[in-house]
């Protein structure tokens, strides 16, 4: 899927020179002011951010009882949100690593913000396991550290695996992202017109000077990291899947969960990338580097993921029937007939039915349609996560304690609030760092023979 057939598929011919690329990406930050729209957007995120902070403050002081969790359905929005956000992060890593390794060049113009998305999403995801605890102050007990109690974490728990997976994932993503940013920080330093800009970008660039020797070490490290990122990201999502699969609850105890979580994560992650790419492209006028071909190929990825997800659901139903265990069959019946059936139908519609539109090129090229489908997918994937939690816990082995979740205001706050936090992160980011990797676009423009 390289740019072979079509001359300048991954870069628009209008602005092609290396200098023009730098200007297109760096000038909105360094030359042009943020603009009214940016401020409005920032203002719009504020209530969300305040709601998030308020909700976190409230849950830390009043208690996790604020959530709709109860004696039977002991997990709820926090867990679903966690899985959803960590899934969002997935696409960033996949775009930068898997596509790098497979030499998918189109990744160059989107990998930076996809990685930033990973970072923010993983960071936000990391909040949820902590605030869902009964005693969040003791979250650090999951880490092995010298203590006067002579105690250690209980390594057989999937939550300890989770702790390490998230920790590794966040730090790894940050390093990966920062490494890729280094040469661009040097560009920013060199283009800076103010002393402050020079100092800040200069310090962050660590003295990077585009030396051919630096480039070689850089390439070694970056490629190795990419090679590590693929198993890492798969393991992270497998472990998230194991949070459920390593149990004995019907509907959770399924060996399909780890791969199914990885694909699901990719699915929602790509959908989120598409949404962000549309906004970034429009907001920063990056039509030259983010082209319809990008959207087309991402649409195909989503279509592929949709098919795999549908297959996974079908496998789940089939295995429940084929396995013949009463609790498994019963929980699948509960999907369709139980208290949350309407959510389940919505899930199927969002994740399996609607994305089939992507078979049509029109849907992949029309940004409105594509954005709509992507949002639908993200909603569907959140529903999937909450339903994994709800369906099994509400309808477990002990019939006498079957009961449903009681969604609370706090739940809604931590569902919608972090979206604002996420957008805020992006808004700040686009004003500080180049949102598209300049050196990689330069290279692409060179390799595509587009450089004048």
């Amino acid at each position: 899927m390289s740019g072979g057939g079509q001359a300048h598929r991954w870069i628009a011919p209008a602005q092609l020179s290396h200098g023009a690329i730098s200007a297109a990406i760096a000038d909105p930050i360094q030359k042009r002011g943020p603009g009214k729209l940016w401020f409005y957007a920032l203002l719009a995120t504020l209530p969300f951010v305040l709601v998030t902070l308020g909700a976190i403050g409230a849950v830390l002081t009043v208690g996790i009882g604020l959530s709709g969790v109860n004696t039977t359905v002991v997990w709820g929005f926090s867990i679903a949100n966690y899985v959803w956000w960590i899934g969002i992060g997935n696409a960033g890593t996949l775009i930068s690593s898997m596509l790098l390794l497979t030499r998918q060049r189109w990744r160059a113009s989107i990998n930076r913000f996809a990685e930033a998305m990973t970072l923010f999403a993983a960071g936000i995801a990391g909040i949820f396991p902590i605030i869902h605890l009964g005693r969040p102050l003791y979250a650090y007990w999951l880490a092995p550290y010298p203590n006067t109690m002579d105690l250690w974490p209980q390594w057989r728990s999937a939550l300890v695996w989770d702790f390490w997976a998230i920790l590794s994932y966040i730090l790894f993503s940050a390093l990966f992202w920062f490494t890729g940013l280094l040469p661009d920080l040097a560009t920013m330093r060199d283009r800076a017109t103010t002393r402050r800009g020079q100092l800040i970008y200069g310090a962050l660039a660590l003295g990077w000077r585009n030396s051919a020797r630096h480039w070689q070490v850089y390439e070694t490290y970056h490629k190795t990291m990419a090679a590590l990122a693929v198993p890492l990201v798969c393991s992270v999502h497998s472990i998230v899947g194991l949070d459920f699969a390593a149990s004995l609850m019907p509907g959770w105890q399924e060996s399909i969960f780890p791969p199914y979580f990885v694909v699901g994560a990719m699915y929602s992650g790509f959908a989120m990338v598409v949404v962000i790419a549309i906004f970034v492209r429009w907001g920063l006028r990056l039509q030259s580097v983010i082209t319809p071909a990008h959207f087309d190929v991402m649409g195909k990825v989503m279509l592929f993921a949709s098919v795999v997800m549908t297959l996974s659901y079908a496998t789940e139903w089939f295995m429940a029937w084929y396995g013949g265990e009463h609790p498994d069959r019963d929980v699948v019946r509960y999907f369709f007939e139980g208290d949350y059936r309407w959510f389940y139908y919505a899930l199927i519609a969002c994740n399996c039915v609607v994305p089939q539109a992507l078979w049509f090129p029109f849907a992949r090229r029309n940004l409105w349609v594509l954005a709509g489908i992507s949002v639908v997918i993200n909603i569907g994937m959140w529903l999937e996560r909450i339903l994994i939690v709800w369906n099994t816990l509400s309808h477990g082995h002990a019939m006498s304690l079957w009961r449903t979740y009681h969604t609370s205001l706090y739940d809604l706050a931590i569902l919608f609030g972090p979206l604002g936090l996420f957008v805020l992160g992006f808004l700040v980011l686009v004003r500080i760092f180049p949102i598209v990797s300049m050196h990689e676009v330069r290279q692409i423009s060179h390799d595509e023979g587009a450089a004048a």
Partner: protein
Amino acid sequence: MVQIFRPGADTVARVVLASIAAAPILSVGLAYAVWRSPYATQQEVTREQPVPFSHEHHVGGLGIDCRYCHTSVEQAAFPGIPPTETCMSCHSQIWTNAPMLAPVRTSLAEGRPLEWRKVHTLPHYVYFNHSVHVAKGVGCTTCHGEVQTMKLIRQVAPLTMGWCLDCHRDPAPNLRPREAVFDTNWTPPPDQKTIGAQLVKAYHIKSPERLSECSICHR
């Protein structure tokens, strides 16, 4: 183009990077040091008491047995704090007018208890039983130190869970014959190792695995 940074900036940058790497390790180490320190464990802290009762005088000097005042130490979890009448059984005869003992006399006269400040405090979720330890040959001074030398009682041991576990995992070095439990001047004999091992058997002390199970101390 001109240099943005002076040559010294390189050093600063290196130090900053090294600090970022070292910070987590150092902070964990610092936290651990603080948790172990007497500041956190309240070790060696002497507290002011309503009456400056001296174990040095009563135990070391007069040789009064621990159980004279701590009456339930052999029968109950709680060793017992002597009621005012125990003090007055002697001090109605001697030092009857000592100003130092005025609170004791007032307490008896008014029927209002003395309010001692607690020195050895365990968290409320720890269920320590004095009688079992005494019956198994753990001497008073093993945990409470040489009370016969203390003018005001203070906590000698850290009383952390790790400290408890040290003995629960290997009780032998801290065991003594039952008859020596209340002997404040007892010192381990040179062959404590063999004697300790014999006492573990003789007193049917449970295995280290069992003794380090959560339910031994927590419920």
